[in-house]
């Protein structure tokens, strides 16, 4: 009888110890996960309309390079970054703005004038002047920005 009660007490202590241990582990573990993945879950910063420059710089029928400076807050550091955009117009009124980031693996594409094509040096991805896929491993056309023109100034919607 006495022996049996001893055993029960021991079992209780064992279970209680495990339970408290698991509780502490979870109390540490769950915040730790939130802590680690926190910045990954943060929504990408929106930049609003970014001014590229005057529309008079855009050559008819040829993708023209524009650079714009943006300020990006990464963690505790504010970085000034340069974004590069190719702008194409066929009629001087309607503009398309394309990102120069290759849709394959993120290298930067270049406009090769002689061949009338965008070329990506990393894996030989080729795009036509409107950003459409021509050759190589690229999965989709170049990404486009939303464009607006105000007082002959070209703006893109940064995101």
């Amino acid at each position: 009888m006495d022996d049996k009660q001893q055993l029960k007490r021991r079992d209780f202590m064992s279970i209680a110890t495990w339970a408290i241990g698991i509780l502490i582990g979870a109390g540490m573990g769950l915040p730790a996960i939130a802590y680690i993945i926190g910045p990954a879950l943060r929504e990408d910063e929106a930049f609003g309309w970014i001014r590229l420059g005057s529309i008079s710089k855009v050559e008819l029928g040829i993708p023209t390079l524009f650079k714009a400076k943006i300020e990006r807050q990464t963690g505790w550091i504010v970085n000034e970054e340069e974004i590069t955009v190719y702008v194409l117009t066929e009629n001087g009124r309607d503009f398309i703005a394309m990102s120069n980031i290759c849709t394959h693996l993120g290298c930067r594409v270049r406009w090769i004038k002689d061949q009338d094509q965008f070329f990506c040096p990393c894996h030989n991805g080729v795009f036509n002047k409107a950003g459409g896929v021509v050759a190589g491993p690229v999965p989709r056309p170049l990404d486009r920005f939303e464009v607006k023109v105000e007082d002959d100034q070209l703006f893109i919607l940064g995101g």
Partner: protein
Amino acid sequence: MVTQISEWLDERLGWRSVWETIFLRKVPKVNWSYTLGSATLFAAVNQAVTGILLTIYYVPSPDQAYASVQYITTQVPAGWLIRGLHHYGASAMILLTVLHMVRVIFYGSYKYPREMTWFTGVGLLLIVFGFGFSGYLLPWDQKAFWATTVGTRIAEVTPLVGDAILRIMRGGKELTAITLARFFGVHVWFLPATLIILIGIHLYLVIRIGISSVPTREE
């Protein structure tokens, strides 16, 4: 199923006898003050876990250290909790280590055959102080900067070698980026490595010799 897996593992690892040696060992009838060592170990584990987590965001450079700590505290989810646990855990660590030592002195547990346990314990106490001293600089705020200025100046008072000690601690005459970087290195590499080795020996001895019993009037 569970028994089958644990049987399979035990046959290959022999973990059951290890488990029994560590956790199911016989102990004399003692009081709650004998749990202070385990409490200190728990605080140490807390410091290790939260400390490792803090290094994900912390940058030990004068132009970023403070901002990265602010980022942890105000921007990262549960960052305030992780930093808080490390901050207050540090005080708990010192407190528990000293209380544990007081208990060992009070019950005479340092005597034969436990001298080596005591020696390693003294080493651990010094390491814990080292952790406190080096960690205090890392937030790189005014308190940190001036506390380390004063702390290293105190070391300078040492006869003959004082100036050398100050220079080695600071990595030069002034308290600079070099000081911050080396305090960080000491805090996250040198001290933890030594701590783990000494805790290993300390616990090995506790388990091998067994804990002391409460002294009786006759002894």
